[in-house]
């Protein structure tokens, strides 16, 4: 009889942005049932926290109130106004405290409050074991602190800790892997060899390399067009934002250009100011500016329009809402008019729409305007007024929304990132949505070399694994996960960056060492003594293709030898433990047998791994493997004992 049943297990995975939790293990593992934004709001009493922003309803004082929580507190403590009604604002995140930054817990009281909130939301029965997924940045002492908290606050009968990277490998069912976990504002790279995370050289919390970096990249490109951070964030999450493969040409450029030129025209065109990366700064000015390279036709007018369109919140706050609405209405009519005319313009638009996103010059996405909603709420409009304003400002009618859904717009994404409640439904009813158009900037989120930084970290992490012979396996099994890697095209681009910078090609001089005269002279720079005939890029090798095929035990690759650096058996280095890596870079295939996970993707594989692990350590092996600490253990050994138990 196992000590716990499937439905008596809680899994909590805290993250910088999102905390995922679940009570009970379903028959077939599903993605975490409850999602929380990892933030709390300071409550009235210092040191206490509320899960939602509390704002005063029917506020008299205009404008001031949205400054800070402090403003709101004062009247309450003074108790001079009894009619104040407090309301929970479940969408706004103003003044929130985020207890986890770059994977580190920076605000412990807040973090504990968050965990308590999570626990209370799940409302588990008393006899429930807890498995907590730990971030790599948490230190052993912090593990002890957590253990103490869980046992003493929740009186849990059993508690276990599991490293996020290790959990990921459990999900994929592999024992050796390099886990690249791209988070909100950090990346962890962990080499795991035979179930053991290599602590040496583990890249823990590489700062500034996460989803946030891409948002910042977009922001730096789009700031001049009136985009704010929130817009960029939502743009990043939409389907139209993408990292294009290296060397691909931006749509609208027309002419194929060299790789390094690609990033430049846009930064020059969009900002005209210094690029954000040093490389960008260096190269700006080398490129001819002006139309023809990458500037969009009619950019100025677009910018003007955008000016008006994007700053709705401030317009509304400034009391010019009606004028704005009138203008908007006129635009709509104009559009309708144009449609009626049946001008050739829609044709062109349609043609654009049919192209894949990476080929389109411009694309639109739905923007949920929280700031606007906040402003409206603070304007004291009354319920009816609020609703009216909302519907007036909400550009996206039901039909349009549907269109977007068909276009593959981010219904699933919003769901996955659903705020507050955890009630993962469709788009929230209260929100205001608008359509925003962006140009090719959406492909340039990686403007300051985040990908390269991550690639360098992967290389560094694997290179510092002590056992040289294990490295090649680690390169063969990369796992790229974390919600920061959701960005379209990110994984492929990272792989490409890795290959183009670090992949070791088979040396032409050693295809078959025995066939080469041992005293090979250092070839002259001209390559004059490279033997003939020239076959492919590596014509220099004197390999008999038949012999090669025979020894490699493969089909004949007569033409491709040397041309395909990924071909197995090409590497000379395999003959001993000494050799350079990587000769091969591969990603691990995600598991096939979790249909629910397959739908949403394996970005949160750590949670799946934790489910597998929870099943194993709490249920299947009946506590034999000591994967968790029980209450008697805790009473005996105290928090320090956790190190003997955690996975």
């Amino acid at each position, binding site marked *: 009889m196992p000590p716990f049943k499937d439905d008596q297990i809680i899994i909590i995975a805290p993250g910088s942005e999102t905390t995922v939790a679940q009570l009970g293990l379903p028959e077939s593992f599903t993605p975490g049932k409850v999602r929380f934004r990892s933030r709390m709001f*300071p409550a009235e009493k*210092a040191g206490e926290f509320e899960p939602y922003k509390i704002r005063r309803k029917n506020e008299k004082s205009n404008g001031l109130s949205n400054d800070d929580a*402090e403003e709101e507190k004062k009247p309450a403590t003074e108790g001079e106004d009894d009619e104040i009604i407090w309301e929970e604002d479940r969408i706004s995140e103003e*003044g929130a*405290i985020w207890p986890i930054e770059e994977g580190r817990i*920076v*605000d*412990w009281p807040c973090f504990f409050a968050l965990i308590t909130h999570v626990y209370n939301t799940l409302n588990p029965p008393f006899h429930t074991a807890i498995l907590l997924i730990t971030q790599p940045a*948490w*230190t052993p*002492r*912090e593990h002890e*602190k957590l253990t103490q908290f869980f046992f003493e606050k929740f009186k849990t009968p059993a508690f276990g800790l599991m490293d996020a990277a290790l959990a990921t490998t459990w999900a994929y069912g592999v024992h050796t892997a390099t886990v690249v976990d791209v988070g909100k504002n950090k990346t962890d790279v962990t080499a795991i060899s035979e179930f053991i995370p290599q*602590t*040496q*050289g583990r*890249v823990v919390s*590489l700062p500034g390399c996460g989803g946030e970096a891409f948002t910042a990249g977009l922001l730096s490109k789009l700031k001049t067009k009136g985009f704010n951070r929130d817009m960029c964030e939502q743009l990043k999450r939409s389907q139209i934002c993408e990292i294009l493969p290296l060397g691909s040409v931006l749509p609208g450029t027309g002419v194929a250009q060299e*790789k*390094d030129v690609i990033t430049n025209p846009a930064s020059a065109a969009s900002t005209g100011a210094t690029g954000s990366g*040093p*490389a960008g*700064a*260096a190269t700006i000015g080398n490129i001819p500016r002006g139309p023809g390279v990458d500037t969009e036709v009619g950019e100025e007018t677009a910018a003007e329009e955008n000016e008006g369109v994007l700053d709705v919140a401030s317009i509304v706050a400034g009391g010019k809402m009606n004028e704005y609405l009138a203008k908007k209405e006129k635009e709509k009519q104009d559009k309708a008019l144009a449609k009626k005319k049946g001008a050739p313009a829609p044709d062109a638009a349609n043609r654009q729409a049919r192209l894949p996103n990476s080929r389109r010059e411009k694309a639109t996405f739905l923007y949920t305007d929280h700031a606007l909603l906040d402003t409206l709420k603070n304007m004291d409009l009354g319920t009816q007024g609020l609703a009216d304003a909302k519907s007036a400002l909400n550009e996206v009618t039901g039909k349009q929304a549907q269109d977007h859904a068909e276009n593959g717009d981010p219904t699933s994404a919003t769901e996955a990132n659903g705020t507050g409640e955890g009630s993962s439904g469709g788009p929230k009813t209260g929100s205001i949505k608008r359509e925003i158009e962006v140009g090719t900037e959406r492909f340039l989120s990686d403007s300051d070399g985040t990908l390269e930084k991550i690639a*360098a*970290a992967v*290389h*560094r992490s694997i*290179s510092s694994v002590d*056992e040289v012979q294990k490295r090649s396996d680690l390169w063969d099994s990369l796992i790229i996960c974390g919600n920061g890697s959701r960005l379209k095209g990110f994984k492929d681009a990272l792989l490409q960056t890795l290959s*183009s*910078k*670090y992949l*070791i090609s088979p*040396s*032409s*001089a*050693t295809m078959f*060492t025995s066939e080469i005269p*041992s*005293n*090979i002279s*250092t*070839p002259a*720079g001209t*390559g004059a003594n*490279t033997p003939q005939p020239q076959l492919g*890029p*590596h*014509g*220099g090798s004197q390999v008999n293709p038949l012999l090669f095929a025979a020894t490699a035990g493969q089909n004949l690759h007569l033409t491709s030898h040397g041309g395909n650096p990924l071909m197995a058996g090409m590497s000379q*280095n395999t003959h001993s433990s*000494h050799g*350079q890596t990587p000769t091969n870079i591969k990603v691990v295939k995600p598991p096939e047998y979790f249909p629910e996970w397959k739908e949403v993707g394996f970005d949160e594989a750590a949670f799946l791994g934790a489910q597998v692990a929870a099943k194993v350590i709490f249920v299947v092996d009946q506590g034999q*493997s*000591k994967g968790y600490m029980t209450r008697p253990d805790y009473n005996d050994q105290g928090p*320090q004992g956790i*190190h003997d138990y*955690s*996975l």
Partner: protein
Amino acid sequence: MNIPNSSTAPAAGEYAGDEVSAIVLDPGYSSTRAGFAGEDVPKSVCPSFYGQRDTDSGLHYAFGENAIHNPQDRLDIKNYWGSDGIVEDWDVATKLWEYAITDRLTGAKATDPTKNGLNDGNTNGDSMDVDIEALENNEKPLEESPLLITEPGWNSAKAREKYIEIAMEDWGAPAFFLQKTGVLAAFASGKASGIIIDVGASHTSVTPVLDGMVLRKGVQKSPLAGNFISNQIRQIFKQSSPEIPLTPHYLVKSKTQVDAGSPAQAAYKTFANPPTDSFRFNEEERVLTEFKESVVEVWPGPGRFSNGNNEEIARNTPGRPFEMPDGWNQVFSSERFRAAEGLFDASAALTSDTSPRPKDEHTIPRLVQAAVQQVDADQRPMLLANIVVTGGSTLLYKFNERLNYEINAIYPSTRNKLIAPGSVVERKYASWIGGSILASLGSFHQLWISRKEYEEHGAGIVEKRCR
């Protein structure tokens, strides 16, 4: 995963190791290791190199792997060790050690309450009290952990006092102990006596240990170690024709496959403010480390590499290819034996204007000889039967074969035995592991220098207690 084995794990109450949760700090030239006593591998391994940025707002230090490999304007990469194998820059050493301990072991100090957003909402008087309290808590990062630090065998008395001062004054450790790396490496291999050959990054040392005590006059050290091999490789590159270019990774944007020996055709990065020379040097070292791991081989004997037709034999063995970060690649045949030959044969070392010929007495065989010379004649066979090999540079391919050959050549009549742990971790971190074992022993508790004793006797107590 930590699955206790019922046949080996002692009961919790049997030894008192777990209760103290001592921290073991093992600083080396290349990396600084720190971890909790009783564990089998240091949890925190951070480079001893650090970044120093001289900006307008003053000096900024950057510690840890993440910080020092990022090309930045005016970022100097330095090391706190002096050329004599004794800590030179104590201020930075203190900071770096503290970083190594707090970052991965005990948790970072809480950020300053004025910055962490906790008090953003309330600017009233209450927060001030919190500030002071927090500051007091922050001041001493190691208040609850006894600290064991390792030191090189040739450490000066002054340096030793400095260690205890840092531990007691700066970190507020409740107890402290200092132990020599040689002894600890022997402990890690389960030996109380033996000769410890430690080939590290900056120094090679040979330490005779008898019953857990270092024979101080027998301690030998020489600068022929990992960094020396790196310099030899650099010279091999320079002296080959055409000169082999050494381009670190950060300069390369993407590389293209080229034929062996032909010039690289990579896309390079450009920097508006190119990183400093020291940064480049450190990044080049990483390439050289890879070269050492994958190409360099020690001539295993018999005889020296330059003897007879050994070179001819080496030339006929298959070469090893190496590809530079910029795509340049070549097969190294007999040259690869040359890089490490200087460790054993001073006359075989490559020399140049900047690197003179190493001294004969600095080669490893001569060091061993000199160390054994200082030991009583009747103890020698016992020591020679326990030769512990440790240090990262001993991982060079065929190093042990050669060492074995050399030692047997000097002492043909004794039974010489090399003890070299097969596991890389044990070889690299032997002295840390020894420290971990020592500090977790229940019987070690009486040896700690307690805070009270320190306050009573002052820093001089290390000389008396830690021999």
